[in-house]
């Protein structure tokens, strides 16, 4: 026995309260006296419990002190000072209060026997049940004790039924809570990301599947990106190498072309200078165009002689033929070096000498057609025989008349 068990119940003017000092009626819980019958009240006053147990009992009585609740004054309830304090399970959050039967009134012997029979099981099933000590019944008669046993047995049966109904209620509540929890979990899953159902694909049903699918897709995308970057880098390197090789080859080619152009320009310049020198020499040698024309005539005659040599039978020998060929080449070379700046192309014809003109006239021009060819003097001479202004003609005409 601790010191708390010596706390006495005090019967005040308004109710029953725990006496633990001055003003205990106002500081501790209490119940109204009219809730208990006289026998119950006397029985309760003889019981000894801890302070917490008394508080719990008071609270239980006050909670079930409604008109619909079981009347505490019913027979058997706390009748013989036997009270079992039953604590409701703390972890179960119920919207509706548990139907805890308060009218437990077990005698010590019956309850002790039951407890002894189910000592191990009882603690497992209902660890919150507390066996309270009761008053001694040795001073009662056999009949009274038998009656108490019967009443206790009835109370035990009712209590067992009440416990069974309480367990079933707890089971229903638990199943309902589990169902609500599953529904709320599903609702929460569907509401994550405000993703509507029509947006979900066949590959995933819930948003978690979608997130997993997206995550796997992102991983694959990252892997592909890394592969692509590596491939791009390798291709870029190869391309750089190729461009570099091409640049080098182009550079070498350009260098060669530049050298060739410079050599060609030098060669052309040398040829131009040589040609200019030849022209100058020819012009200095022939101080008039007539002599140049004579040179052309001589070249033409030379050509005709070479042609005659080709056609003559004596030139059939290979030696002569080679000489004639070499002579032809030399003549062509000489002809190419004769200046042609004073040649004119007339009617798709070019005449280099008077003899060419003579041949042309002999073959392709009527002999009396010289008056058909004009220059500016002949053309102006065709204007009139004599130049006479119109006013002079008019004056002469006027004077004549």
């Amino acid at each position, binding site marked *: 026995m601790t010191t708390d068990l010596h706390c006495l119940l005090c019967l005040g003017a308004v109710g029953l309260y725990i006496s633990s000092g001055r003003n205990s009626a106002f500081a501790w819980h209490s119940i109204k006296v009219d809730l208990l019958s006289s026998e119950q009240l006397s029985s309760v006053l003889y019981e000894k419990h801890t302070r917490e147990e008394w508080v719990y009992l008071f609270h239980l009585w006050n909670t079930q002190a409604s008109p619909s609740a079981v009347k505490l004054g019913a027979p058997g309830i706390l009748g013989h000072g036997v009270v079992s304090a039953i604590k409701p399970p703390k972890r179960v959050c119920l919207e509706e209060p548990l139907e805890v039967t308060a009218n437990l009134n077990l005698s010590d012997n019956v309850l002790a026997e039951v407890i002894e029979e189910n000592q191990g099981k009882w603690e497992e099933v209902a660890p919150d049940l507390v066996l309270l000590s009761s008053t001694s019944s040795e001073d009662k008669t056999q009949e009274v004790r038998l009656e108490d046993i019967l009443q206790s047995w009835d109370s035990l049966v009712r209590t067992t039924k009440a416990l069974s109904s309480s367990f079933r209620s707890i089971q229903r509540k638990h199943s309902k809570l589990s169902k609500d929890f599953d529904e709320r979990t599903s609702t929460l899953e569907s509401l994550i990301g405000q993703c509507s159902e029509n947006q979900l694909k066949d590959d995933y049903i819930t948003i978690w599947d979608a997130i997993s699918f997206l995550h796997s897709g992102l991983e694959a995308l990252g892997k592909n990106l890394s592969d692509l970057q590596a491939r791009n880098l390798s291709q870029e390197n190869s391309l750089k190498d190729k461009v570099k090789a091409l640049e080098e080859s182009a550079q070498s080619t350009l260098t060669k072309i530049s050298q060739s152009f410079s050599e060609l320009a030098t060669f052309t310049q040398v040829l131009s200078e040589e040609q200019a020198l030849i022209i100058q020499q020819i012009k200095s040698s022939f101080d008039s*165009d007539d002599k140049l024309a004579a040179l052309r005539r001589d070249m033409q005659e030379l050509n005709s002689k070479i042609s005659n040599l080709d056609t003559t039978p004596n030139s059939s020998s290979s030696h002569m033929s080679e000489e004639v060929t070499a002579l032809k080449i030399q003549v062509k070379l000489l002809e190419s070096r004769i200046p042609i700046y*004073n*040649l*004119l192309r*007339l*009617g*798709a*014809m070019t*005449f280099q000498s*008077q003899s060419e*003109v*003579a041949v*042309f*006239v*002999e073959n*392709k*021009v*009527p*002999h*009396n*057609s*010289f*008056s*058909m*060819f*004009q*220059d*500016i*003097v*002949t*053309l*102006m*001479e*065709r*204007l*009139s*025989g*004599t*130049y006479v*202004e*119109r*006013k002079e003609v008019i004056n002469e005409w006027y004077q004549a008349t």
Partner: protein
Amino acid sequence: MGLDEREARHVASFKITYPTVFGYIKEGASSSKHHLSAVKSFKDWKSFDCESGVKAFILNGMEDLKLQLYQDITNFFLDEKFYGAKMIAHDMHNKSQIFVAEMCNWMDVFFQELLTTSEATEEEAWLLVSGCTKKIFEDLRRVRATAANATSEINPSSKCATYLWALIQSHIG
């Protein structure tokens, strides 16, 4: 000789230096101090009415000769054998027409330029213009002189070749 008027004018043109329209001298008159004796001043060259004057006479005559000579050449070289000669004749005619037109235009432009860009009088300007024109014909004379006595040649083919060669040289010059 057996020459018609056209051939006679053609042959005579190789004996003179200046065309008659520029160098005509009246009979009995002494040699002129002017470069072009037939065109003594710019007024004679180009009158204000643009209908009289040597320039208008030349341009009108050239316009007339353009079609006339074209038709004469085409008719004369009808045979396909003479196609080359016909083309040469047309080409020489066209080049001569162009040269005459450009020369007339140049004489006007150069005269006006001398008046506007220098303090020369009209007489002085025309003296320079006519002197340049005279120089042109004198240069042409150098190459045309080879055919001055071509009429003495017996061979008609050679005579025609001589004239043609001289005309070609004239175009080159």
